[in-house]
């Protein structure tokens, strides 16, 4: 009689702890997803200031700078349109990343430019921004994977239904062109 009672208590405690674990992971996954947005917004806010800081020094590369500003404005517009446009948002953000990497490559072409204080700082800030977005996505994928795995592993799957655990999607590259090696055209135009 006692043994049965103890067993029931132990199983009950386990159910509670598995349920709580799933809830915690679900919230962490949602948080990690929003973190990506935080970094994207930071990039939107940072770019105009950065571009202004180097406009004087990089006057001869005006077209590259303008491409960056335009891509940024487009990305902001798309983001404001709402959550349904996830595909459009990622397309716009990828376009912005492309424009930024072209800018960074341009800066590499002029070694004297790097010595100019502002431009070196621009490079560092842009690199950091791209890294932050990448790490935010990495954290989201890691957390989502942890959540999915925990839901699917044996004893916890029994509790998954109770905890309303759903399989979350990982952030992935939708446009196959993204996987191609980037072409960098250094010819003078």
């Amino acid at each position, binding site marked *: 009689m006692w043994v049965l009672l103890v067993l029931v208590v132990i199983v009950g405690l386990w159910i509670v702890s598995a349920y709580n674990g799933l809830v915690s992971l679900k919230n962490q996954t949602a948080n990690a997803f929003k973190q990506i947005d935080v970094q994207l917004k930071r990039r939107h806010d940072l770019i105009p200031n950065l571009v202004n800081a180097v406009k004087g020094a990089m006057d001869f590369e005006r077209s590259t700078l303008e491409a960056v500003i335009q891509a940024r404005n487009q990305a902001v517009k798309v983001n404001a349109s709402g959550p349904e446009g996830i595909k459009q948002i990622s397309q716009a953000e990828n376009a912005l990343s492309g424009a930024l990497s072209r800018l960074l490559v341009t800066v590499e072409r002029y070694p004297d430019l790097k010595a100019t204080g502002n431009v070196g700082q621009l490079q560092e800030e842009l*690199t950091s921004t791209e890294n*932050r977005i990448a790490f*935010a996505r990495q*954290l989201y994928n890691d*957390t989502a994977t942890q959540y999915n795995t925990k839901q699917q592993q044996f004893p916890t799957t029994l509790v998954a239904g109770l905890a309303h655990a759903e399989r979350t999607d990982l952030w992935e590259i939708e446009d196959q062109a993204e996987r191609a090696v980037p072409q960098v055209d250094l010819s003078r135009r």
Partner: protein
Amino acid sequence: MIGFVLFFAWLGFGGDYIWALSNNHHPFPWLGIVLTAAAIVTAWYAYKTGPEKVLWATGAHELIDPQTDAERQVANVVDEMAIAAGVPRPRIWIVPDPDPNAFATGHDPRDSHIAVTEGLLKICNRDELQAVIGHELGHVKNLDVRLMTTLAALVGAVLLVRDGMGRMMGRGGRLPGRSGGRRAKDAGPLLAILLALWVISWIIAPLVTQLLAMAVSRRREYLADAMSAQFTRNPLALASALEKIESAAAPTESIKRGAAHLCICDPLGRRLTNREGWLADTFATHPPMGMRISRLKGMGYAQLKKEGGSFTNSALA
């Protein structure tokens, strides 16, 4: 922590028991209570102020408003790693020492500090710096910092107490035999043995604390290396950083003995660090550098194999 307090409680109540045997009446066990209370207060104080003390001892200054490019880079790198690790941003400190090293301290991810030496900033490139910071954040995330910082402060506290007790014992050595001398003869041999054991444990107390500090150090270092590789997805960066740090080799003078086990590389340059085996595992604070580097390269090779990359155009070649 609990072990620490219990150990002192045992010492205190043991002393009371011996006193009771020698006097053959049962006094209020004030020695036990006082010592336990003192241990609790010491432990709490060490826990609370540990990080500040450790940082103060190294002469570090906090990086609040980055001025130079190097400072901006450090601030950015730490931010990026904090994002990848999923922890809040730690406070950054810079130690004015030309020898490359880094350590982490603090209570938990919400209240953590990371310190790097100026030497490290000079010799590492951005990726390597990121890998080192990733290693330190691994320690923070594992709550190694809580364990290690408290133990570092406790080691200091215990040594102080031992010195104090040494002075008291010299003065009060006559106390146990003061009254009830008749009864004392009957309990004679047992009393002597207990007293001897009690005195020996006083001598051993600092050693025990030191051992506790080193007990899991090596495993935690390997774990922090692995976590850095997980955060950066670039184990070769850490391998290359460790190689650079190792070849710079000189002892880091700013980091004192108590904080040695918090650093990425043994600041005292001890020979024991490079040995394997049970003795080295128990007493050394860090694993052999060669072992750490080869494990990281192994991870890099496995990663490369999975991605189908070529061996010749990688850093492993």
